């Protein structure tokens, strides 16, 4: 780790030239995005600096409550992010299902990964727990928001088919099966695709980071494979939990197809 090259303030400042280039392009072409670009750059920089200091503090003072607290905050942000990212208005029921699925799905896979796969001691070691939680939560969040969007639009566009199945005496579970399967498939697809391209089309961020910080590429690859499998597990568990809970809210107690319930 000693041979890691630190960046000087000037070097880092030089990187901001890329943003200047972007702003010039946007200006010249008359695309009104300067404000957003500046805001995004400032936010990114400030948020990361804050996180950097926070992580330094946490690593110096490992404490299970801190670790769990950070995970809880990340979870809450991820859940809100999903609410914001859906194109459809969400009812209370739907929001509950998203929160439950993300809570159970992510925590189960995260703890399995930390305690069984990596076998970290102490279990709350923030150096492992926090970055891995970040990756698992982030990917699961993307999966669930895809699942939510596809489930809702699937129910919207296949009403006739679902009702046709109900008319044939199908239980809601059977009537919704195709929609649920398609939503699951499309939520999983980005994760599966990223596995396919990994190492050829791009080098994953975590692996790159580890290599840059002086870790042997072999060790970095081992970690990357493990985390990728963990991500697949978490995304699939979270999405299927969500779908299993959520499809029911499209039917009422008489097994009639309703628009999404807003109680």
């Amino acid at each position, binding site marked *: 780790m000693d041979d890691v090259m630190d960046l000087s303030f000037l070097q880092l400042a030089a990187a901001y030239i890329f943003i200047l280039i972007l702003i010039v392009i946007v200006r010249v072409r008359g695309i009104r995005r300067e404000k957003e670009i500046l805001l995004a750059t400032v936010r990114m920089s400030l948020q990361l600096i804050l996180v950097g200091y926070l992580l330094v503090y946490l690593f110096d003072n490992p404490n299970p409550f801190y670790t769990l607290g950070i995970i809880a905050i990340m979870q809450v942000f991820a859940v809100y992010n999903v609410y914001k990212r859906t194109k459809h208005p969400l009812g209370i029921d739907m929001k509950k299902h998203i929160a439950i699925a993300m809570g159970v799905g992510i925590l189960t896979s995260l703890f399995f990964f930390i305690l069984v796969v990596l076998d970290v001691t102490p279990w709350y070691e923030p150096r492992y727990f926090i970055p891995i939680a970040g990756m698992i939560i982030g990917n699961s969040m993307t999966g669930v928001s895809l699942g939510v969007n596809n489930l809702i639009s699937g129910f919207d566009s296949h009403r*006739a*088919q679902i*009702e*046709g*199945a*109900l*008319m*044939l*005496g*199908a*239980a809601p579970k*059977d*009537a919704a099966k*195709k929609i649920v399967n398609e939503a699951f498939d499309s939520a999983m697809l980005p994760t599966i695709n990223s596995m396919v391209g990994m190492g050829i089309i791009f080098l994953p961020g975590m692996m790159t980071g580890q290599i840059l910080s002086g870790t042997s590429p072999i060790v970095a690859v081992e970690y990357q494979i493990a985390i990728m499998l963990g991500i697949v597990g978490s995304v699939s568990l979270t999405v299927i939990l969500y779908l299993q809970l959520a499809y029911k809210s499209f039917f009422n107690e*008489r*097994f*009639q*197809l309703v628009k999404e319930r807003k109680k």
Partner: protein
Amino acid sequence: MEDKVLRKLFLGFIQIHILHHAKEQPIFGLWMLEELKEHGYSLSAGTLYPILHTMESDGLLVKEERNVEGKIRKYYRTTENGNRVLEEAQKKHTNCSRKSRIDRRVNMFELKNVRVNGIIHIDDLTIPANQFTCILGPSGSGKTTLLRLLNDLSSPDEGEISFKNERVADIDPLQLRRTVLMVPQAPVIFDGSIEDNLQIGLAFSRKEAAGVEEMESVLKLFMLDKKLNDEAENLSGGEKQRLSWARAMLLDPEVFLLDEPTSALDEETARTVLTRFSEYTKQPSKTVIMITHSKTLAELVAENTIEMSRYSLRSGVS
């Protein structure tokens, strides 16, 4: 022999027409074959159906009993024992019509003060059991909404619907829909082959899968000259409509709710398929409630009609 067989056929025929209203006979052709066997005539379906067909094209197979009686009388005048056969048939007629009067009193559905916001307003309506009821009326008069209520696919905003004297709201919805099956106007086709589409209804309602012969005969009945493994998506609109109807028939429910099942069919196909279907539903305890725009088709099969309009509702026995 030919003459005797024909005579038996006529005997069976007049009985069947009398029994029509009692709804106690199975499918016409099958019933006849059995009847003939009992009288010592072993006849294959292949022999019987052409004879029936000839009778049909001779105009002997018409719906009204009186007409048939007249034609039979005419026919038997030229044959021996004509009067005896007729007397026998008439005796059966009296017995049966007494029975049929009792049957008519059984109600399948009863609607009281049913309202669906701005679409349906029914104070009192009964739909009889074991009959072919046609619902007529202009677009927007709530015909489809009425069928959806009977299938419990929607619930009324107000009022009560009962099925066999039990409130629909108290019946398990899956059981109800498996007993009272609805066929929508726009056919719903599922992924896969014709066979997949025929079997999926049975799978949905947890019934045993149909055999190849059964599926092929139902396709034939609905004039679908297709192979079971043909892609269902490639069928034309009219073929899809018949496939969706055929799928319902494989489920053999007690009540059929048909929403304009012939809307995508040409007139001739519509008549043939509807006649065949109505023959099938003459077997015991089958009730059909069908929406149609065509008065001619309603006249062909209806034993009871409901006329809906935006403001009122009229029901009657035809």
